[in-house]
């Protein structure tokens, strides 16, 4: 691709996963009883809480660790996580919003050309891995960025990491 190509590539972030800690023990039964939009998974020992705006699903463990998924930007993820912490505060827990960290960002991009995957794999041997019997895309790993790209023959690329 030329540096001065006039085709702008739209890269769309579809999912941001973040974690944070509340530094206090959480009573999952109480959250399940007094929280709206919650699902209590007793067998696994976690509570799923869904927020409407921003559209986020949070997995809450009794140790105080919370994982938020579904945000479309890092700022939204932080906003949703803070909202969740506020909700838990209102429920009566001594919540302190700490150790917020974005763990994974998933983005999708479309190339304006098709890609011949077997040839692509041959030319990018150590990084690219292609198993047509298992998955239709080439898995390209960039170790330095700790990112994984799924490259499809239609030119669609999914970036995670």
């Amino acid at each position, binding site marked *: *691709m030329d540096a001065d190509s006039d*085709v702008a590539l*739209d890269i*769309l972030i579809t999912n941001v996963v973040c974690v944070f800690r509340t530094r206090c023990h959480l009573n999952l039964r109480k959250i399940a*009883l*007094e*929280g*709206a*939009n919650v699902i209590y998974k007793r067998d696994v020992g976690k509570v799923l*809480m869904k*927020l*409407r705006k*921003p559209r986020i699903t949070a997995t809450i463990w009794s140790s105080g660790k919370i994982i938020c998924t579904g945000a*479309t*930007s*890092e*700022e*939204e*993820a*932080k*906003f949703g996580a*803070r*909202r969740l912490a*506020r*909700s838990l505060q*209102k*429920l009566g827990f001594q919540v302190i919003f700490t150790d917020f960290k974005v763990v994974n960002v998933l983005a999708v991009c*479309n*190339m*304006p*050309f*098709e*890609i*011949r*995957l*077997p*040839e*692509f*794999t*041959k*030319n990018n*041997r*150590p990084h690219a*891995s*292609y*198993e*047509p*019997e*298992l998955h*239709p*895309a080439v898995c390209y790993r960039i170790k330095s960025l700790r990112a994984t790209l799924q490259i*499809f*023959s*239609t030119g669609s690329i999914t970036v995670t990491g």
Partner: protein
Amino acid sequence: MPGGGHCPDCGSTELVEDSHYSQSQLVCSDCGCVVTEGVLTTTFSDEGNLREVTYSRSTGENDQVSRSQQRGLRRVRDLCRVLQLPSTFEDTAVAYYQQAYRHSGIRAARLQKKEVLVGCCVLITCRQHNWPLTMGTICTLLYADLDVFSGTYMQIVKLLGLDVPSLCLADLVKTYCSSFRLFQASPSVPATYVEDKEKMLSRTLQLVELADETWLVTGRHPLPVITAATFLAWQSLRPAHRLTCSLARFCKVANVELPCPAASRLQELLAVLLRMAEQLAWLRVLQLDKRSVVKHIGDLLQHRHTLVREAFREGPVGLEAGEEEPRGQCGGPGQGKEEVASGSCGLPVGKRPASPALLLPPCMLKPPKRACPPPPVSTVTGDENISDSEIEQYLRTPQEVKDFEKAQAARQDARSVSNPP
């Protein structure tokens, strides 16, 4: 030492048992006279009592190897023998298994995973020697689930840091086609269905190459494409008697399992052949359809390179406009062609044969199932104030909590009534 013996020379009773190399002898300790000798050679019945010590037992090699690892190594060797692989493959696969076993994650894994690991090691060995072996075959032989197999396979490739080459399509075609039972007449195979192996193989290879060129193989499981190509090749060699035979019946007669996607691959391949047929003047007048085009596959394959170029470059205007839409905001076909040339292969534009403009993977030719709206521009910073009213929507009011508790209790009662202890 022994009792009751006298030396014939000096009369002493001090007789000692000694052995001269491997021959046991009774010797007088005073004068050194040999009183009796043992037998140097053993009889057949004596040898039956001797136990042969295996090399591995004598060196203590197996003492360091756990029982489950020994079992796994035996399974690897058995699998190589079942697949009739050369002996060098066996040694390589065993080495991989031992290497994998050194990792704690594998040592502590479940037996199911260790069983699947056997198949993974054999598969990696075959791939590195370009021996065509599919995962499906190994899963069938090991009665393993493909999901478990794929997980273990990816894990082991990463763990051992191996570079596993892709499956070679041409070799897979040859092996797979040879497994079709159509080359000899038998009670289940009518005489009109029997075909010459070499002819069928060469035609199938040409059809698979054609499918590869026209985006039907990229990203898909190779076996259904090869099945469809074999079927078409077989039909086209004697169309008069074979056009009435369906794909399912063909697989049944040939004693081969029909993979599910093979039918749609067959339709796609026929569509490509029809497009190519439109470029030949003497076929255009015949107005072929998906059944009649089979009779002319021989001619089409003979000129396939030219026909593919012609068929997909000079599309009608309406079709071109229709196919622009799925590509959305990207550049025009000319630019797309250039980027295929330079972007995917890394070869200079001049060297790579020009890819036809309208030749797209089949999924791009279908209209998109759901329109993807552009995401709304969000001005969230992450540190804004959150008002109480926003939070209240996520909390139940005390009345709602009481109602919920009542409903739960009622459900519990109903359950205990319907399931009496």
